[in-house]
């Protein structure tokens, strides 16, 4: 039980020499990476660079084969209880929203707090409504996910993750599946969250978002962290050719 909360001053996420393979394919190579509490990090890179996989390692949606990953003082291994303990503290937002279609918006938010945190139903519902207000979608509480637009669904998904009161939020390309006119409403919610001090790891190509909130930008290519820097440095003066090429490609059009 002492493992439940780690050293409050140390990094919340620490990866040391992490390697991962999908069969023969070496997705992540020697990743050394740590995140301080309260830090906001944007991870970018070409597709297939391993950025999503790296984020998914943190809550064990993927498992690594070499190296160590410590999240909030708990080392990730095959121990199911430790994995569930970490998942309680780490919220995740997916590209495809992944709301539960058979439950209403409100039920999507109250499910995990009641079943995992054993929160009384009333309290969970109050918390859910509070969060839905925060993502400006409270009036849709009794609808089903399929009745909402993509942007609304993604805001519900963010609120669902927040309902567990996580210490870290992971965003895996949260706006990539959205129509352009809906991207802003989701980014606004994320910016607000960042201002409130949430620790965030965001895989995204939204460079405006990165400039606004990121403390650090991590650039990945072919399974490696190629470059890390403050957003203004990274965007104006990338140090590596690979980063220059990538930036010219995404900013070029």
């Amino acid at each position, binding site marked *: 039980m002492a493992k439940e909360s780690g050293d409050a001053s140390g990094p919340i996420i620490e990866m040391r020499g992490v390697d991962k393979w999908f069969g023969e394919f070496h997705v992540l190579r020697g990743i050394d990476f740590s995140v301080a509490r309260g830090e906001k990090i944007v991870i970018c890179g070409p597709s297939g660079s391993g950025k999503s996989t790296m984020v998914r390692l943190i809550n064990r*949606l993927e498992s690594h084969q070499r190296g160590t990953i410590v999240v909030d003082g708990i080392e990730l291994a095959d121990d199911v209880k430790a994995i569930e*303990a970490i*998942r309680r503290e780490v919220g995740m937002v*997916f590209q495809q929203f*992944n709301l539960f279609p058979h439950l209403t918006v409100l039920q999507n938010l109250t499910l*995990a707090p009641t*079943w995992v945190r054993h929160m009384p139903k009333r309290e969970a519902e109050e918390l859910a409504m509070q969060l839905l207000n925060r993502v400006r979608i409270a009036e849709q509480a009794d609808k089903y996910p399929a009745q909402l637009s993509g942007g609304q669904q993604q805001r519900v998904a963010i609120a669902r993750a927040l309902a*567990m009161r996580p210490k870290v939020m992971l965003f895996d390309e949260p706006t990539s599946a959205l129509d352009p006119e809906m991207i802003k409403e989701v980014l606004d919610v994320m910016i607000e969250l960042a201002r409130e001090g949430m620790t965030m790891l965001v895989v995204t190509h939204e460079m405006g978002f990165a400039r606004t909130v990121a403390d650090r930008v991590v650039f990945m290519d072919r399974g490696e962290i190629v470059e890390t820097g403050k957003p203004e440095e990274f965007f104006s003066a990338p140090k590596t050719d690979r980063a220059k090429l990538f930036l010219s490609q995404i900013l070029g059009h």
Partner: protein
Amino acid sequence: MTGSRAIRWLRANLFYSVPSSLTTLVLLYLAWRLVPPFFDWAFVHAVWTAPQPSICRNAAGACWAFIVEKHRFILFGTYPYAQQWRPGLGILIFLALYVVSAMRACWRPWLALVWLGGLALIGALMWGGVPGLPYVDDGRWGGLMLTLILATFGIAAAFPLSVLLALGRRSNMPAVRTACVLYIELIRGVPLISLLFMASVMLPLFLPEGLTIDKLLRAQIAMVMFAMAYLAEVVRGGLQAIPQGQYEAAEALGLSYWRKMLLIILPQALRISIPPLVNTFIAFFKDTSLVVIIGLFDLLTAVKVSLNEPAWSGYGMEAYLFAALVYFAFCFSMSKYSQRLERDLSRGRKHILRED
């Protein structure tokens, strides 16, 4: 105007080519030769009540009086005559359970308790052995009631077990997975009759001396084992249709395996499996008639046995038509219900899409 439309319709649908015209004519001829005589036999000249069997002997039509005379035996088999209100009440409880389960508003966790209570009540009624209800050995159960017992208890036991089996087949644990695959493939590879034979002939040989399981229970176990394997494959199909993202979202929230399955995956997977599940239920309902080979008195056997009385022999047509009608009533209701359910669920989805 309407006349020419009718002719055009006939042309387009019944006489659009030489083979189609020939087929139409042949079918019309057959209908003309078969339907009116059947109608005459079944209704016009039929005998509905006959205090003496001889009245039927002299009639030109069907002897439905035979069914009227034998209905208690067909419904309840050799259950003690004076106690037959008990299986009668049992049939009503079964029907009530079916109706309640058919209403979607009742698809709540308490429905499982209602089922447990209903089935326990039926067991108590049928066996008795409590004050006011004399004990009746299950060797004397029979007729429609036995068919309903085998089918309903069978499905009620096989369905939850099949869900476990389906989950086991998709488990990450190799031993569990292999065991489930072996079980499913083994059972699906043999006919139900051979399982029933094994249950009635071979199983007692393997049991320690002194321990006996009665015949009805052995047959029921064999049928549950059989239905489980088929239902498990249907459930597995539903599980496979659920996107990976649903599993990941549940896991990312910290839900344990069983909570993830019970709260997120199964509610969705079972919903889409309803039509094939009902299909398997229908097949299973009819398969209960195979218990005749190990000497149980189900509906079909009861009908056959009632023909053995010399005074009433020779009415096989009426007897089997009636049995067919009873099976049909149950199976057709299941089929109709599953179609309605399918339509309701897909209408719900379309409705949602329109609002989007």
